[in-house]
């Protein structure tokens, strides 16, 4: 199972198309719903996370994830137009950062293949 958390539905669908295996994907347009889903026991193998979301932002989500032993292990790929290095976010389980302005579908697919086969 892969989670895509992005309040832009079309961008989320683009990410989903790049991943390819649509049956394995769950969409969330805000962080709270995604957190509730995880709290109910659904553990994704990988999360694609936008940072600027309606309501709590991506950083709040990451902070919540890292607060629990089991969720802290879930790899997260941040997809954002903001500039930041992966080094700053490694401690939050972030395994990669894709810039929305420049990312390619094959890069998205590579993360999916690596972490959510």
């Amino acid at each position, binding site marked *: 199972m892969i989670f895509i958390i992005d309040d832009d539905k079309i*961008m989320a669908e683009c990410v989903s*198309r790049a991943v390819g295996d649509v049956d394995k994907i769950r969409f969330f347009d805000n962080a709270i719903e995604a957190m509730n889903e995880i709290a109910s026991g659904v553990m994704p193998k990988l999360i694609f996370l936008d940072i600027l979301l309606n309501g709590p932002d991506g950083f709040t989500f990451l902070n919540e994830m890292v607060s629990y032993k089991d969720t802290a292990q879930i790899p997260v790929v941040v997809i954002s137009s903001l500039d930041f290095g992966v080094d700053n976010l490694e401690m939050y389980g972030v395994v990669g950062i894709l810039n929305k302005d420049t990312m*390619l579908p094959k890069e998205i697919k590579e993360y999916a293949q690596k972490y959510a086969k």
Partner: protein
Amino acid sequence: MMQEVDGVLVVAHELKAPLAVLRQLALSLDDLGAKNEHLRDEMVQVSERAIRQVNDLAKVRRLEDGLFEMEPVAVRVVCDDVMQELRYLFRENKRGLRVKYTNKARVVTANRELLYSVIYNFLVNAMHYSAEGTQSELAVQDERECVKVMVRDYGPALPVNIWREMKKGFIKEPTAIAMRPGSSGLGLYIASKFSRYMHAEVGAVRHRDGASFYVKIPISRQLSLL
């Protein structure tokens, strides 16, 4: 106390989001066939240019925060990267681009990102104003205390008032250099602002058959201390 919201930055973000989506949608198009693949490539390129322009505008607003670090930068490498990105645009528009490096690959003090944008904007401007079938020129040469990057185009001559504005070394606003038909002057305005931030000098040379725009970037003394 509430922090004042910068309208331009908000607009930039609002514009960028749909442009990034358009780019992704174009990239998602599969099985177009060889005949239509170039349409997808063009959509991607156009989106990327628009995203770059919006990003540059946002950077102009952030210059006064002083967040762009100055560092030793290899000018030739930056020029090569810009050329790589724009080669497609020149080819699609049936314009050529010739390069002339006569410097000793000296390193300058600049911000790589901003310098990239300066050269990028010069080249896009040249492409836009060159006649079909002509070749623009990118030259990099050493001067005493700086490295000069010059872009020559073959299009309409530069009006005298605009040339004077450039000669002063700084362009105050885009409309002041609505210099040739169809131009808002935004690209050169951005190049001018970024150059000033880097303590580089911008200028223009008038030709009967076009114009040259240049930026002179101070060389880095850091390596000479070794």
